[in-house]
């Protein structure tokens, strides 16, 4: 570890080297820049018995010295450099010489560059993933060409989800089409039928009618002892129609 005197000397030296270009700035920033210039940490300078860093004290001492020489001044927490400015550096003259084309650019272009957005989250952790999905309202609505979507850490999962949703929609469409066809073959056109929001199709139960009642969809009579379905919050329906609706579910 450096002695106090040596440490102060080195800090002043560092200050003289970097402050002409870095000041004015706040105390903390200036101290950090000194440390990074010296390639050291705060605790490399040691600690007082009270636990405080000696480096801070050395800095104050150094500033005091530089202020006395008129090289530095302070304004509140801001340090200002008053000493000589560094000489402008002469631009280096570069000589460009033609070289042999040893680098095959075409081979570089062949390499498939895969850009992966950096993520703050560890998506391998299931809990993190669940939470992230929960706070992402647009999850599953990815637009592949959208730059924002491409930068999203959930991009690939979102694509997967969208695919699943689309697949489910397609399956539902196909099932509906098939069910409508079956009903149509039995002589019922269900295309124009408006199903009430309240109707609980999934709770439909098959019953043997105890009296004559009309089908709520076709208006036809369901005779006594005929097998039919009751769709809660809608009414009685013919068996064929109910099965078609069930298939659509």
């Amino acid at each position, binding site marked *: 570890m450096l002695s106090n005197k040596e440490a102060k000397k080195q800090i002043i030296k560092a200050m003289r080297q970097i402050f002409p270009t870095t000041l004015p700035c706040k105390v903390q920033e200036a101290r950090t820049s000194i440390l990074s210039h010296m390639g050291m940490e705060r605790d490399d300078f040691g600690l007082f018995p009270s636990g405080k860093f000696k480096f801070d004290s050395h800095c104050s001492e150094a500033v005091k010295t530089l202020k006395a020489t008129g090289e530095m001044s302070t304004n509140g927490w801001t340090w200002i450099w008053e000493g000589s400015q560094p000489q402008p550096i002469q631009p280096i003259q570069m000589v460009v010489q033609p070289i042999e084309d040893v680098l095959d650019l075409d081979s570089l272009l062949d390499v498939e560059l895969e850009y992966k957005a950096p993520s703050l989250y560890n998506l391998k952790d299931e809990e993190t993933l669940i939470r992230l999905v929960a706070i992402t309202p647009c999850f599953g609505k990815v637009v592949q060409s959208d730059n924002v979507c491409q930068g999203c850490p959930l991009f690939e999962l979102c694509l997967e989800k969208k695919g699943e949703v689309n697949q489910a929609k397609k399956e539902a469409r196909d099932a509906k089409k098939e069910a409508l066809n079956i009903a149509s073959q039995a002589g019922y056109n269900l295309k124009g039928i408006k199903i*009430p929001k*309240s109707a609980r199709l999934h709770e439909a139960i098959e019953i043997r009618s105890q009296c004559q*009642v009309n089908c709520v969809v076709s208006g036809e009579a369901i005779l006594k002892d005929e097998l039919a379905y009751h769709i809660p919050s809608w009414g009685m329906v013919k068996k064929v129609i109910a099965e078609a609706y069930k298939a659509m579910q």
Partner: protein
Amino acid sequence: MTKKELMKYAHSVHEAINGKLIDVSSYSSDHPFEGMDIDTMMDMVNGDLVKKFVKDNDKEVKDIVSQMYATLAINTPIKVTKGSKDKRGMEGFIIHAQEPIQGSGKALFIYDIINNKSCIVRDSATKVRIPNYGERTRLWETYQECKQQHPYFTTGNEVELKADTSRKGFIVSDAKLDPNLNGNGFYQCQVQWNDHQSPQNGTYILTELNLVK
């Protein structure tokens, strides 16, 4: 589908499933489906339509009672909003309205037909309310019953309290209308109870009592 058609269809669906019609309450005043159980109807037929008819009905009833309240008409359903703890929150009907002894507005005699409670409040301490389904039927019934029964509730007859049939006592004054209500209100009589519970005597409207043969 009209309301009547929906009701008819609900009955037929219920009968097809359960072999009987939907239960109908005899207390059907202000009811959207003449006393048919609304939850059962919701289950049997188009729930959206049922909700719509209930909403329309409630709006209609609200308009009617609001008009009644504007003139402080007798039998307007109201709620007491100000006053002592006993009065505040009480829901009843205006049985009688008159000029107050002092101050502005009107003094209202309120009767709660469900809990058999009454009070007098200033009209500014009340607001109109939508009556519960069947509540007004009960009100008419009470008027009717009191009117029909009052010749039998005469001094000396033994009676018991409907709410607590262990309480028995004797009528100490013939049934009559409250003289303070100008011919409005229900027939009532004074009863002296045999037991030593408090209150030992009191005034009761006739539907609160049973005649003991």
